């Protein structure tokens, strides 16, 4: 919870992690990938304010107490959504699995949402694991990392027949929210791995599921925005946008926010800190204070009110995950009408 200038913000961190990427968890023979992955993440941390940077050793493996303090104690977060990333070819126990997240989270009732994951290349065995995870952890969402390496394959698309079996299973199991995270590899490697047209197809074919494209499809913001205007069940996860640009590149951040507000509107954007890449505190406080820089350059972009920020920081995600919001943190019903309808008509 956060309060500023008389506005009360209920904060849902829609994208965060509890990982172990220390050398004790590296798979022998794959050390260079495990090391390369966490060092890549660590460079992202460098885009935040210097006073929030950690040592690499701390970043590789942080404790339960660190997380609880950074996210809930100082970070203003009310409910956090664990988004697992397995990477079992590189990390012995996985980078951060559903089990690891839930084992920790169960000691803090009411604080966490346990998303799980699947990989179409795991076939029937993976389907059974998905069913078991939903049963055991009550998962209502899945995080899909399409660039995961799996038995010689470097990635997959949502449009593969195998993936559709899983999406059908998600609908049967009561999973509502599919978080998609694109990465640098896919099969075949000569295609653009970041292409989001498969999300477009899947969103059309599964209108009962919500598709949250993480880090707004970066580095394909343009393709993502254009696709999202045409799919009512597609949302943008702001992880990396706020963390990677708001401090380091304020003018570019303003342009990206302006485009997102224009193409998707404030009802379709979800805050995610991407903890432990960045701590939520400076992101939440900075975003509440944010406005376009003084310049005519931004005059065409939609404004973002305190009500809009309340949606983005928590109320939109609370709706997707049926999280109970205390009455004083809710918006009047009228403010919840979908934004950006006029804008969306532009592409009809």
């Amino acid at each position, binding site marked *: 919870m956060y309060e500023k200038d008389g506005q009360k913000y209920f904060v849902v961190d829609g994208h965060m992690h509890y990982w172990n990427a220390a050398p004790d968890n590296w798979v022998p023979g794959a050390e*260079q*990938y495990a090391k*390369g*992955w966490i*060092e*890549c993440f*660590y*460079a*992202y941390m*460098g*885009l935040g304010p210097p006073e929030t940077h950690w040592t690499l050793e701390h970043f590789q493996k942080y404790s339960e107490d660190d997380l609880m303090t950074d996210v809930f104690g100082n970070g203003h977060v009310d409910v956090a959504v664990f988004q697992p990333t397995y990477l079992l070819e590189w990390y012995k126990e996985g980078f951060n699995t559903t089990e690891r997240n839930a084992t920790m989270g169960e000691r803090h009732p009411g604080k966490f949402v346990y998303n799980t994951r699947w990989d179409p290349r795991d076939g029937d065995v993976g389907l059974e694991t998905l069913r078991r995870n939903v049963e055991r952890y009550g998962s209502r969402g899945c995080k899909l990392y399409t660039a995961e390496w799996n038995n010689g394959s*470097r990635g997959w698309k949502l449009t593969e027949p195998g993936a559709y079996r899983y999406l059908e299973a998600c609908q049967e199991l009561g999973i509502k929210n599919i978080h998609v995270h694109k*990465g*640098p*590899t896919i*099969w*075949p*490697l*000569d*295609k*653009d*791995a*970041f292409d989001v047209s498969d999300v477009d197809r899947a969103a059309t074919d599964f209108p009962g599921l919500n598709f949250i494209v993480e880090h707004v499809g*970066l*580095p*394909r*913001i*343009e393709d993502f*925005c*254009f696709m999202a205007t045409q799919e009512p069940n597609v949302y943008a996860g702001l992880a990396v946008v706020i963390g*990677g*640009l708001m*401090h*380091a*590149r*304020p*003018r*570019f951040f303003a*342009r*990206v926010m*302006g*485009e997102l507000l*224009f*193409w998707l509107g404030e009802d379709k954007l979800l805050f995610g800190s991407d903890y432990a890449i960045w701590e939520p505190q400076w992101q939440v406080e900075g975003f509440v204070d944010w406005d376009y820089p003084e310049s*005519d*350059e931004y005059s065409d972009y939609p404004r973002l009110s305190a009500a809009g920020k309340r949606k983005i920081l928590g109320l939109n995600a609370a709706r997707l995950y049926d999280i109970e919001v205390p009455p004083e943190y809710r918006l009047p019903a009228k403010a919840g009408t979908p934004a950006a309808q006029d804008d969306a008509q*532009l*592409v009809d």
Partner: protein
Amino acid sequence: MSGATPLLAALDTVRDPELDEPITALGFVAACALSSDGDAEVRLRLPTYFCAPNFAYLMVADAYDAVTALPGVRSARVVLEDHFAADAINGGVAAQTGFARSFAGEAAGELDDLRRDFLRKAVLAGTGQVCRALRASGADDATLASLTLGDVPPGPALDRLRQRRTELGLPAGDEAPLLVDPVTGQGVGPDAAALHLRRARLTAVSIEANGSICRDMLRHRYDTSGPHEQAQRQQVPGEEELR
């Protein structure tokens, strides 16, 4: 690093296909040298260990071609460092085997379609950058739709747009419309101009944001500037200073 100047001039012509900027301006050239016997050596670096291997391959292959084409260069060695696919890329470029054979079993074809698709994005983004300046001086959608390239005040952004359009085989002369479909080269009519311009602006914003993230990541990965990095950056529209 003797004899590096002609090498750097050649490397200035090599672009990151996604970011549409010279690899020198991006700081991706770590070092280069040309021996008195004509043996060239170039070392390239990228913002992360996991940067997409297809784009990385294009940059290494283009750097090899640019350097080999220089008069007086007898041999060229281009090495990508600190990357998960460095061995496959460096070996494939050195042996001139092409992308598909460098990644046998993992790639279905060469990278020409990928390159063309990103050149089209560069045309759209370049249009957005040219129009951003025109809009600041009061031009609205209808006005922008009526302009030809010859109507646009000269500058680096316009030069760049003409060059990209030429590479794609799109009209780039003074009489060509400012707004063209990057696939067909047909002029964009007044009815379609608003949407076209919004997409152009969006594409420019996207590529600029990507470029800034890549630069900032590279800076945290390596604490040295690359040769020509500062000089070439002056040419980049939309750039902002680091905080």
